[in-house]
């Protein structure tokens, strides 16, 4: 009887990238199919809309979210640390940025206001990620579960603020704060919904994270930590410190994005579910779609932003959001298959 065996292989980088591009193309097919079947729109209209989406500069508003968060998570995932809490770290960053912009005099000063707000957002996100990091580093508590739980705590904390002490005086009972002062806002490029500064900051992180991971001693140790923690310890780098650093970096980038969401997009604190909007979870897969490679991250972030932006364009009522969730999930499932193809092959033994 023939037996199936799965054996390891190393696909050439070019082929490996080709497999991923295949996934990206097949993903667009999945998106077209699911929208036209589940929402009852004819396939040709959907195809035109989707192709249109990829050319719309407005999707940069999501690109600015997915790129830095994906880069930060890549640092943690290179060390095989499951930081699943980007969602919560984004929300906490948003809370910190709102605090600086709205409740301290700093918010009224141009340049100083947004810079401090972004820095403190980043610090808040980093500290939020630090707690599961410390628990993992010192007590060996499973970080996947604790980071997941922290997301819900962050949601509730943000909701407590907008429903309670921070609710604005001019918002007619909506659960949101007042608008932040003009000096703290990051202004949009005329006609689009994103700010040039935010885009430049996001892009600047590509070389920074790349150089950190591949050209510094600590970055190399982080990459090695994933496959062999013992070897890293023997080489004289403390594993505990690496864990803490990796969590700190990924949290800082997610927090920064959260702050930017307030200064650039919402301009006020809204309930946590609206700030995160599941983007923290999607970022996890953005990171893996780029094979954790900072240089490929822009491509992966661009692709996912386009599909994410689709929900704003389709406007098919209350079902659009779940349908987008569904097919983005399907695309990531194809990604899992592609990871298998580039790492293993199936042979039939006689």
């Amino acid at each position, binding site marked *: 009887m023939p037996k199936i*065996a*799965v*054996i*390891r292989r190393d696909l050439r980088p070019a082929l490996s990238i080709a497999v991923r591009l295949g996934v990206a193309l097949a993903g667009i097919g999945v998106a077209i199919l699911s929208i036209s079947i*589940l929402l009852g729109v004819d396939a040709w209209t959907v195809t035109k809309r989707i192709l249109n989406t990829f050319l719309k500069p407005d999707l940069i508003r999501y690109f600015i979210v997915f790129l830095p968060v994906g880069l930060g998570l890549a640092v943690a995932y290179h060390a095989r640390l*499951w930081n*699943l809490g980007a969602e919560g770290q984004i929300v906490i960053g948003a809370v910190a940025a709102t605090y600086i912009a709205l409740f301290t005099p700093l918010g009224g000063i141009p340049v100083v206001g947004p810079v401090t707000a972004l820095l403190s957002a980043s610090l808040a996100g980093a500290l939020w990620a630090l707690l599961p990091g410390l*628990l993992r580093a010192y*007590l*060996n*508590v*499973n970080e*996947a*579960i*604790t980071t*997941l*739980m*922290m997301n*819900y*705590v962050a949601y*509730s*904390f943000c*909701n*407590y603020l907008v*429903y*309670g002490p921070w609710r604005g005086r001019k918002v007619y009972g909506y659960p949101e704060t007042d608008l932040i002062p003009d000096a703290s806002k990051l202004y949009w490029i005329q006609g689009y919904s994103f700010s040039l500064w935010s885009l430049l900051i996001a892009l600047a992180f590509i070389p920074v994270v790349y150089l950190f991971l591949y050209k510094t001693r600590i970055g190399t140790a982080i990459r090695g930590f994933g496959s062999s923690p013992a070897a890293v310890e023997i080489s004289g780098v403390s594993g505990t410190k690496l864990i803490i650093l990796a969590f700190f970096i990924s949290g800082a980038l997610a927090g920064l994005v959260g702050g930017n969401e307030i200064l650039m997009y919402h301009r006020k604190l809204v309930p946590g579910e609206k700030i995160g909007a599941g983007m923290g*979870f*999607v970022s*996890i*897969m953005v990171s*893996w779609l780029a094979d954790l490679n900072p240089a490929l991250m822009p491509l992966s972030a661009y692709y996912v932003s386009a599909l994410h932006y689709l929900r704003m364009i389709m406007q098919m009522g*209350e*079902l659009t*959001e*779940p*349908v*987008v*969730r*569904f*097919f*983005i*999930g*399907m695309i*990531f*499932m194809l*990604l*899992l*298959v592609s*990871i*298998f193809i580039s*790492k*293993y092959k199936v042979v039939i033994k006689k």
Partner: protein
Amino acid sequence: MILEELFESFFFFLLLAAIGDILVERSGVLNLGIDGFITLCLAICYSATIAYGPLASLALAVTAGVLYAILIALFVNLLHSSHVLTGLVMNMIFYGLSVIIGYWGLDLAMEKGIPRTLMIGLSLDWHSILTLSFISVLTAWLFLYRTRTGTAIRACGYNPRSADYLGVNVWRTRMLSLIAGYIVIALGGYVYVSFYSRAWTPYIGMGYGFLALALAISSLWHPLLIVLPTIIFSYLLRSLYIYQLEYGISQHLLSMIPYIASIVFITAVATSPIGKRLPIPKALGEIYYKEERAA
């Protein structure tokens, strides 16, 4: 009466979800996909009850559980995918699908002209819930600790390689435990819709899966130890709104408590001396790569 307060259908739902999760994770499969399944299962139970009646709904829920388990097994075993990523992707897909299924049920109720709240004559009193909980906990324990298959499942969770050397088929055992676990979870979902909520709103049940996961960890994946934390948690969750009414504490601050409590529970268990001594599934989340055996 305190027993009535403690043993009601929400407790039973949480208990079944946690037991199902224990069955799955004892085989070493990190079960993050449970949250997506609970969300999906509640939507299926609701819509199927409206469309085909309560019995067919039960059958459909169990079938969905089996299929979901097979899908996870395919990714985790054959495709050697990371357990965490598989779980997250499954969640994403089925959160989305659950809303589509649920709205279908709501629309159907409107078309048929029947109320959107389910009318089920049957209800579970605390006697029957106590008995049923007792039976399910005992069955799970007997299955895991007193049968050959159960022992094989625990071996796969503790050290899959050694289990394989001793003649256990790791892939088959993990698939079996996934199927068994998801059937129990599906029953839990059915209890939630038919006896507790009797209604459906978008994304209802989201987050309970992760709570069940935390409960399983805090009981060290032991089906007998799970009862106490489940009683505490389900009581806590249901009585939150009372604190809000009586003491005026914000509902949003209160809804943090279960999650903070589970982080504390997990940490306490991980650091306590008992946690280090009991044989927990050490290989949880480990991708089992069979061909490395010969090396």
